[in-house]
């Protein structure tokens, strides 16, 4: 860190004891950033801002929410009807969950397209996957809090997944519930953890950024930064670009909050939880649909392993497998721009994930032009794992990448535009 001298005596006093000003200056102001980042690089900072919005609205909502089976549903409706701007905070929070996942999924796919997970950014990627897992746990428990029918049955179905664990499965489920079904103790602990986990995510984001700032951002060419001619200071270039992106994003986000606040929701969740009646058609929130499809795709035992256990393992495996991506992909070239074959299958993978989501939204016996939904789900599940475990390693070895530019600045200047 270059020692800086500050003229303001208070700043100077603090700086001498805690060099926070030079730290901020170094990491946010003059921080050298590749000059060619495109708009796909906006989604990281966007996700961070949504986290802050979620924590801020969540803290205020928690002031009026009552985590008790007799009052939870009514207290949420009291927030919607009686608390000043309660409806606004609640709709921002519930739609914010969807916004968070949209942004993080785009962020994740951007990393996959441009090979941002490759050396030396493996840990950065792994921390990112851990953040995704923490987000999923937070979102799941948050969805239970309004204590509607979908809340209750999502909690029941998802906690029951753990009953697939051999030998101790039932004990684990009872332990998760704190009783013999999803009930008041379950709601209470979910509330506790839903409040805690966002701060864990906040800490993880900090570590994520720390790891990012060691080797700096990847870029659309995937070529390392070679010198000062390849970079521009983060401020003002990327502060303004990120802020503009934030504005554009907020327009879309706020449109849903004000004009279609229940677009991502299910009508059944406006019916108070009833442990005696399951809704005809239970579906998780859209961001869990692909995993739900994978879970339900496994309908067959393999050898002595029951289908239920394989389904659960496949579902969790579909995320955990991402942890190994840096080593499954052996190609030295990061960006798909210079990888003709990988570039094609990347989009196949994107479409595959969308198909999984669509299958997750439908019942397995539903019929799609004569094809059972279950079969589509099984094919898409197979491709998901085939893509990551077989195709990615294979392509990375067999493919001949196109010639890389010598440097970022060389890639940017001759064409005239980035």
């Amino acid at each position: 860190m270059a020692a800086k001298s500050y003229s303001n005596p208070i700043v100077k006093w603090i700086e001498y004891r805690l060099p926070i000003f030079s730290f901020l200056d170094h990491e946010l102001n003059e921080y050298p950033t590749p000059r060619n980042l495109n708009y796909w690089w906006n989604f990281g900072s966007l996700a961070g801002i949504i986290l802050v919005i979620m924590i801020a609205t969540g803290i205020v909502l928690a002031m009026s929410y009552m985590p008790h089976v007799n009052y939870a549903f009514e207290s949420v409706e009291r927030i919607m009807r009686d608390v000043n701007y309660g409806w606004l905070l609640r709709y921002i929070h519930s739609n914010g969950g969807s916004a968070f996942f949209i942004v993080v999924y785009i962020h994740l796919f951007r990393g996959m397209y441009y090979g941002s997970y490759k050396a030396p950014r493996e840990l950065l990627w792994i921390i990112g996957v851990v953040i995704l897992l923490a987000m999923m746990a937070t979102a799941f428990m948050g969805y239970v809090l309004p204590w509607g029918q979908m809340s209750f049955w999502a909690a029941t179905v998802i906690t029951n997944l753990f009953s697939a664990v051999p030998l101790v499965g039932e004990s684990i489920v009872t332990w998760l519930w704190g009783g013999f079904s999803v009930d008041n103790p379950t709601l209470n602990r979910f509330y506790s953890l839903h409040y805690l986990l966002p701060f864990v995510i906040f800490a993880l984001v900090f570590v994520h950024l720390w790891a990012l700032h060691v080797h700096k951002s990847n870029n659309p060419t995937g070529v390392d930064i070679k010198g000062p001619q390849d970079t521009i200071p983060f401020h003002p270039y990327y502060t303004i670009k990120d802020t503009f992106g934030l504005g554009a994003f907020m327009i879309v986000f706020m449109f849903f909050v004000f004009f279609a606040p229940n677009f991502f929701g299910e009508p059944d969740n406006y019916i108070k939880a009833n442990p005696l009646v399951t809704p005809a058609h239970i579906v998780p929130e859209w961001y869990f649909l692909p995993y739900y499809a994978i879970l339900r795709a496994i309908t067959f035992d393999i050898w002595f392993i029951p289908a239920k256990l394989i389904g659960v393992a496949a579902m969790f495996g579909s995320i955990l497998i991402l942890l190994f991506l840096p080593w499954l992909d052996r190609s030295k070239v990061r960006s798909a721009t210079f990888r003709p074959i990988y570039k094609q299958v990347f989009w196949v993978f994107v479409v595959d994930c969308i198909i999984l989501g669509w299958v997750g939204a439908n019942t397995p016996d539903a019929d799609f032009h004569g094809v059972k939904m279950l079969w589509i789900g099984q094919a898409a599940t197979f491709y998901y794992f085939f893509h990551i475990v077989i195709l990615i390693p294979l392509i990375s070895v067999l493919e001949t990448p196109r010639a890389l530019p010598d440097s970022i600045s060389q890639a940017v200047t001759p064409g005239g535009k980035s």
Partner: protein
Amino acid sequence: MNAMRKRLGAALAVLVALGLAAGAAMAAEGGKPPAQTWSFDGLFGTYDRAAAQRGFLVYNTVCAACHSLSLVAYRNLDGIGFKDDAIKAIAAAKEVPDGPNDQGEMFNRPGRPADRFARPFANDNAARAANNGALPPDLSLITKARKGGADYIHALMVGYKEPPTGVQMMEGMQYNAYFPGNQIAMAPPLTEGQVEYADGTKATVAQMAHDVATFLTWAAEPEMEERKRMGVKVLLFLIVLTAMLYALKRQIWTDVH
């Protein structure tokens, strides 16, 4: 960059196609309610006060015999244009349980504006016992809790028919074209001229269905008018701010490009 954009477009097209297919597959669950024209449709929609007040009359004289509206308070009725005195009179006409009094007993007293709508039955079991085992659902959130919202409520009210030949009706059930499964425990609630509208509107079944659906939509989303009004302002503000940010971004980046 361009190629990536093109492929994203292709992926989105697949997504849209799948969405349409899914919509077609779901239609099997019960007749899709025909779309009505509502005063609260669209970005600037508001509740037609007269229709909502007529709808309240229908709820109060017909639905309230079996269906609670427990999340709505009498004082909320100012949201559809009732005046303070009218609200007091509406509340006072209802018996509300209160207590315990100094003797430790629960008692009924006339309602006050701050009270939530009085329930027709003391609890769910009492409601079931009085309705052949069927529980009339609370209507506070009914338009948000059913696919189709106000359209569905309207369709359900006008959807009673003779069962088609070959359909075996269960004891005490009615055939309704729009109810999931088509067999509903609720007898046709509305009959021609059942209520007398003060404004002279003719109380046809379709008219009452429309009015009560308007009232129930308001009951479920009393914040809607404020939400849309604020939404327009927020979006206009964000569009201006984002345009300014874009101009600033262009300006700052001129020396890089």
